[in-house]
């Protein structure tokens, strides 16, 4: 059985008061009873003594009349119910009963009636009142019977009173003590216990307010002080913990940053090493290829035209060498061995050109979106190079999305602070123009991301990609003191962010178009067919500058398709000879089928004397040897168009 402190205290107090009061009550009842009894007895005894004394002479003289009077008088006294007076022989002299006769007395007192007789030696002693001796003689007995009824009644009353007092002395003090205890001790204890429980449960905002200055108050104050201290130290602990945590996160962040920086450093190191290597190789290679190409050319010119198979072999050597030279050119771009003229330029303008280019060449299901900052800062760079760098990234995006998706191009002015340093090894605080190119394509895995900008890194099948696109972009951006960040998620998409330091200078007004050779201008519509977007974009820019309208087609099939629709509008087709899919020759034949009168200009990397003739026979109106200057292009175009 579990007893709370209140019950225990009430129990103890009750027991103590009960036993004390019980004992006192018992003692008082006993005492009162005895006192009453003694009082009664003394009264009866004195009455008996008085009767014995007063009846002396009448017993002596056997005066029954007087004795009866005495006896009757006595029965009028309280409690006395019976009086009898007898002489020495025992015969009744007087008897008296109170009220109804026959009522037996409860108790009886009997006294001897004594006669004191002086012995006078002479009668003169009667006068002198000086008897010499007194003779004592028993002459009879008186007895008084009395009833205990009123004694019992009184005792009962006393008992009742004392019992009532007892009840009061038990209940009242118990109530008073208990209530005081409750107020002064138990309630504060309960409060304290409650508070202690709360503290145990972790609530440290507890205070116990007791408005007393006694030990309880002191206890409560100490408790409050204790809780306060606890709270303080708990807070201190918490602070320390928080500090530690922040330190830990800071540390781990720092560690991560360190690690990242390390990786970036390694990466940068690697890239620069690769760049040095690639640049060196590319330079030497270019020279070698130049020698090969030159010698192949010499050989070819020396060879008689009849040696058809030898001519073919030499052509192959020339094609491969030219191809190789293109590669080395890209490598050199990566290694930044080239020098460009730097102009103040508007990136938005470049992007607009690229988008225009792309809209003609990408699948219809791929949408292109642009968000160009209206007040975009200028950058100090080479427009053609920037064009190249952005275009390479856009091409990759297009390739990553197969048939369907969304390409977003965005430009923004951005201020990088110190914190941005973490994002890239080349990042530094300052004003930048940011170009964001995101796609919803296949995305990249960790490994791909790691090697992304390395030359010759490609995931594409052999022959399809060189792995130089991004390395070129990287080289270009870096040469303008910018940097590229990549975010990619497998199967979700990729986002490239190009940062180029913003220039404070304003865009120079476009230099007035140089006094062009008016003979080179035209208003005809020209369709450019080339798998190389770079060539498409360049050609379009130049031709449009000279008044031509330009339609682009990325391959033979497309060209045929467009031509089918707009054969009347298109005045001239410039066809790349070497293309994936339909070859230049095949395309030419298809176009001829649509319009036998079609005017086609063949562009080729090699001097294909035999093919040239062949093609011209087949309907080509002219031939352009790559790389050609724009002057040559325009002149050739004009020549063909004017030739009716």
């Amino acid at each position, binding site marked *: 059985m579990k007893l709370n402190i209140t019950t225990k205290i009430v129990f103890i107090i009750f027991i103590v008061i009960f036993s004390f009061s019980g004992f006192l009550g018992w003692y008082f009842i006993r005492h009162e009873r005895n006192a009453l009894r003694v009082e009664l007895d003394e009264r009866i005894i004195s009455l008996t003594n008085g009767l014995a004394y007063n009846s002396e*002479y009448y017993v*002596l*003289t056997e005066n029954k009349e007087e004795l009866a009077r005495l006896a009757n008088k006595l029965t009028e006294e309280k409690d006395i119910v019976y009086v009898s007076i007898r002489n020495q022989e025992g015969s009744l002299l007087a008897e008296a009963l109170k009220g109804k006769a026959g009522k037996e007395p409860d108790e009886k007192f009997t006294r001897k009636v004594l006669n004191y007789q002086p012995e006078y030696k*002479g*009668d003169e002693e*009667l*006068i*002198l009142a000086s008897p010499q001796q007194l003779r004592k003689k028993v002459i009879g007995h008186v007895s008084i019977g009395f009833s205990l009824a009123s004694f019992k009644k009184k005792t009962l009353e006393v008992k009742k009173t004392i019992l009532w007092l007892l009840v009061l002395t038990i209940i009242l003090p118990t109530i008073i003590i208990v209530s005081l205890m409750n107020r002064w001790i138990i309630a504060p204890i309960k409060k304290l216990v409650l508070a202690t429980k709360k503290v145990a449960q972790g609530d440290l905002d507890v205070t116990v307010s007791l408005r007393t200055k006694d030990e309880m108050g002191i206890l409560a104050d100490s408790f409050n002080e204790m809780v306060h201290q606890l709270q303080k130290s708990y807070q201190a602990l918490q602070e320390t913990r928080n500090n530690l945590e922040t330190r830990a996160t800071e540390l781990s962040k720092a560690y991560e940053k360190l690690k990242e920086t390390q990786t970036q450093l390694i990466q940068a190191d690697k890239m620069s090493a690769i760049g040095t290597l690639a640049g060196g190789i590319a330079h030497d290679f270019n020279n070698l290829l130049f020698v090969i190409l030159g010698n192949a050319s010499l050989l070819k010119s020396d060879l008689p035209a009849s040696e058809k198979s030898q001519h073919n072999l030499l052509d192959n050597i020339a094609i491969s060498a030219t191809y190789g030279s293109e590669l080395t050119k890209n490598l050199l771009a990566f290694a930044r061995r080239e020098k460009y003229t730097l102009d103040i330029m508007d990136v938005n303008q470049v992007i607009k050109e690229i988008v225009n280019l792309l809209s003609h060449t990408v699948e219809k299901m791929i949408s292109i979106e642009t968000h160009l900052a209206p007040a975009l800062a200028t950058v100090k760079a080479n427009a053609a190079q920037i064009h190249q760098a952005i275009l390479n990234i856009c091409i990759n995006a297009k390739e990553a999305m197969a048939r369907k998706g969304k390409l977003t191009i965005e430009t923004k002015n951005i201020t990088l602070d110190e914190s941005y340093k973490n994002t890239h090894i080349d990042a530094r605080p300052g004003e930048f123009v940011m170009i964001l190119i995101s796609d919803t394509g296949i995305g990249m895995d960790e490994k791909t991301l790691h090697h992304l900008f390395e030359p010759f890194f490609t995931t594409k099948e052999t022959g399809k990609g060189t792995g130089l696109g991004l390395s070129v972009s990287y080289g270009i951006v870096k040469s303008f003191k910018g940097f590229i960040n990549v975010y990619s998620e497998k199967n979700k998409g990729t986002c490239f962010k190009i940062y180029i330091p913003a220039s404070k200078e304003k865009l120079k007004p476009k230099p007035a178009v140089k006094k062009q050779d008016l003979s080179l201008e035209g208003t005809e519509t020209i369709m450019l067919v080339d798998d190389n977007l770079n060539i498409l974009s360049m050609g379009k820019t130049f031709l449009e500058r000279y008044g031509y309208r330009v339609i682009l087609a990325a391959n033979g099939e497309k060209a045929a398709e467009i031509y089918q629709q707009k054969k009347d509008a298109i005045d001239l087709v410039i066809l790349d000879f070497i293309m994936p899919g339909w070859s230049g020759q095949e395309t030419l034949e298809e176009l001829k089928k649509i319009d036998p009168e079609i005017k086609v200009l063949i562009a080729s990397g090699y001097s294909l004397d035999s093919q040239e003739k062949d093609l011209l026979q087949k309907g080509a109106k002219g031939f352009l040897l790559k790389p050609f200057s724009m002057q040559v292009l325009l002149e050739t175009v004009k020549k063909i168009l004017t030739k009716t």
Partner: protein
Amino acid sequence: MNYLKRYFLVLLLLFGLTAFLWAKQREMTISVILPYKSGPYNLALEGFKKFWAEQEVNIRLLEHNLAKEPMPELVFKEIEDKKTDIVLTIGSKATHFANKDIKNIPVVFSMILTPVTGTNITGVSLNIPSSIKINYLKKILPNAKRIGVLYSSKTEEKIKELSFACAKMKLQLIAEKVESAKDFPTHLKKISPQIDCFWMIPDSEIFSPQAVKHLLIESIRNKFPVMGLSYSYVKAGALFSLDGDYEDLGEQAGMLILRILSGEKVSRLPPEPPRKINLFLNQIVAEKIGIEIPAKVIQEATSVIKK
């Protein structure tokens, strides 16, 4: 009274000178025998001593306290050996004792009720003559006619004398003889309605303390005054009492002795009644009974018990 005083004066003149001269010549020895030395007996002794202190006589007092003597029989031998000239007895016990054994030495008694007579004995009695008592009674209760008295065979003689005195003073004496002490209430009841005053006589046969108490209670109940035997009876409820003055009795006895020592013959000196009488009154009792005591008597009284 005047007669008595004159007589004494003549005696003094006659014998004073011779006695004085004789006394001067030699020392006299007086032996006093008393039963015990307290209360009235002592008062009498003091009075006796006081008397001798006032005389220019060379005397020697020998006290014999019977209560303190281991062998009272030897007292007389001693008295004789010491050449005692005269013996004073106080109280009846000492008197009867001396009267029996002393022959050659004159004896003067005191504080006894009934005088002893003989050739060599005389003294002062306690007994106040009935005539004097009746005179007082008449003064206190002028209307009293019938006097009640109870007596035993022992006091029959006295009653005769009393009845004679009453008749002489024109009072009716109603006397009842009590055969046994037991019968006292009966007799008292019988006479109490007829009497104007109850006259107590010193009779130890009748008057036990209980009987006295009964008598005094009855007196108040039935409204008859009681003449007590002494002052203590007045205090207990008697209307009045006439007592001899105990100290004066001693002096009176001293006077007798002086006369005897001066040469007077004992046989020629009769026993004397008390010469000084004290009257005690209880006015509370008087009121209770319905008696008005004359103011003159109250003035005359030695002591009055008042509220």
